[in-house]
């Protein structure tokens, strides 16, 4: 029996190995490309590992393009979007998790339905409105348009976290005469913190990654990171070493952030979906 289990494990290792290679290879290849000198990229015989490794591509990226500027810009936009989404959504989530009111289930499923709608649907009307309000090129346009997907998602996820918090503490708070605002701030918020951080980080990551709205609503001097990165292809035609360095630099911050909240985030997401 034990031998059979071990054999099973060994057999599973082979497909696992291939799946992991499939997942990791693009990252590895991009990283290796980013530390190669240009001459090594465009040869008929490709070296997997760089013969000479260099950081000059990163230097070019940060000092000769507007990459660093757009990175700062992206940090701002993603942070503001997450803050607004968290405040607004946690209030709504509290109402959904703790109160019964008419139309609650309809509202919750409606919100989930809205999350399914394609971004392209919002693109043209938002552009028309932003154009009228002279908001094209301002960070507000991006923050507002990102709310189209961050708010429904955060409400849904935070409601699922909120339901996991025992209600007894709030009840004893109520008996002691705490107002709803006090309950939210002193009792619910600390308990919800892991969930809030996970959701907030996910919103940050999604806003950081967003490209379709960003390319439409920014102008050349306030581009976000993904727009800047995509434009490298045109501006530095065929300089895949620099483009790869940009890809690595755009990805590293969010991957690190994700690793910290990964456990809580997955727990919240799966709790929501397993229950159906």
């Amino acid at each position, binding site marked *: 029996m034990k031998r059979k289990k071990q054999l099973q*494990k060994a057999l599973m290792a082979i497909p696992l190995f291939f*799946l*992991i290679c*499939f*997942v*990791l290879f*693009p*990252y590895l*290849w*991009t990283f290796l490309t980013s530390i190669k000198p240009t001459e090594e990229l*465009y040869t008929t015989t*490709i070296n997997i590992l760089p013969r000479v490794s260099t950081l000059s591509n990163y230097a070019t990226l940060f000092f000769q393009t507007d990459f660093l500027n757009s990175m700062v810009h992206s940090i701002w936009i993603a942070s503001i979007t997450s803050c607004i989404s968290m405040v607004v959504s946690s*209030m*709504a989530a*509290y*109402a959904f998790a703790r*109160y*019964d*009111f008419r139309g609650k289930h309809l509202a919750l499923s409606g*919100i989930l339905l*809205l999350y*399914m709608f*394609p*971004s*392209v*649907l*919002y*693109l*043209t*009307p*938002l*552009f*028309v409105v932003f154009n009228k309000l002279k908001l094209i090129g301002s960070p507000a346009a991006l923050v507002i348009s990102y*709310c*189209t997907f961050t*708010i*429904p998602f955060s409400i849904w996820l935070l409601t699922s976290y909120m339901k996991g918090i025992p209600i007894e503490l709030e009840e004893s708070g109520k008996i002691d005469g705490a107002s*709803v605002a006090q309950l939210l701030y002193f009792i619910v918020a600390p308990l919800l913190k892991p969930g809030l951080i996970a959701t907030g980080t996910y919103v940050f990551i999604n806003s950081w*990654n967003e*490209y*379709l709205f960003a390319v*439409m609503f920014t102008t050349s001097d306030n581009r976000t990171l*993904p727009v800047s*990165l*995509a434009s490298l292809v045109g501006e530095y035609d065929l300089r*895949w070493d620099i*483009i*790869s360095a*940009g*890809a690595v630099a*755009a*990805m590293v911050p969010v*991957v690190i952030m*994700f690793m910290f909240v*990964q456990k809580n985030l*997955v727990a919240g997401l*799966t709790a929501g*979906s*397993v229950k*159906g």
Partner: protein
Amino acid sequence: MDRGKQTNKRRRKSDVYVPLILLAPALLLVVGVIIYPICHAVGLSFQYYKLTDFANRQFIGFQNYIDIWKNEAFIASLGNTVKWVVITVALQFLLGLGLAMILNIPFRGRGVIRSITLMPWVTPGVVIALMWVWIYNGNFGILNHCLISLGIIHQGVPWLGSGKTALYCQIVTMIWQGLPFFAIMILAALQIIPSDLYEAAEISGAGSWQKFIYITLPQIMPTIVTTCMLRIIWVFNNVEVLYLMTGGGPGHSSMTVSLIAYIRAQKSLDFGQGSTIAIYGTLFMILFMAVYLKLTRKGEFE
């Protein structure tokens, strides 16, 4: 007695307006940035509305909805969309299920592997597209290099430059992007299957395959159904990867409905037709969701 009644009454009153106050900001935002734009998009779809020909904008009724069926790119996109969604989600599911089954067996380093495999899920779409464009590069790409070294092909193939391969190559990219998420969802469902079910099956002499068919699969079915639906919608809506890798080309060989809606609006600045296609896409998805939920939720009470 009296006091109890009073607090009861007060609580009931606050139960009405407190949730309203709590919901108000979210409601305002949802109406302002989601519901209103959707209505506006419907309005735009009934207009001749091009930013390049702004002066002549006018109401034209259902003309956009009719004209689009004469558009070659749109017709081509319908078949491509079906391929794009069906092949991608089917393979994401199969590979995701496989990965989840493996990760469900305890072994050292499982947690690390689980975290690492989730990386594509949070990688920016632009980065995903660029990484794979470079891998598929016809002259200097690593894929061609490997295949030539292995003797499978003798000459570099322009993977994204040929109408025969472009869509399928991007499907591989999309599978890569969505596979981990699928695996993690299924894994979570696998981990809550009560182990006594398996023990009972073992006592009655069930083999691994039978255990999989009669216990595992029915237990994880609700998760599979939900995740498949979410993924189908997600893949259908995805524009980034296709837009940045080939922009729907060569020709219309990798054009999808969502992509053509985006290109119409963003590149051609034809907001009328762009909205029309986006609305068609949304209607297709709503129709699909209705049928899908009807078929899968049969006899199941929520």
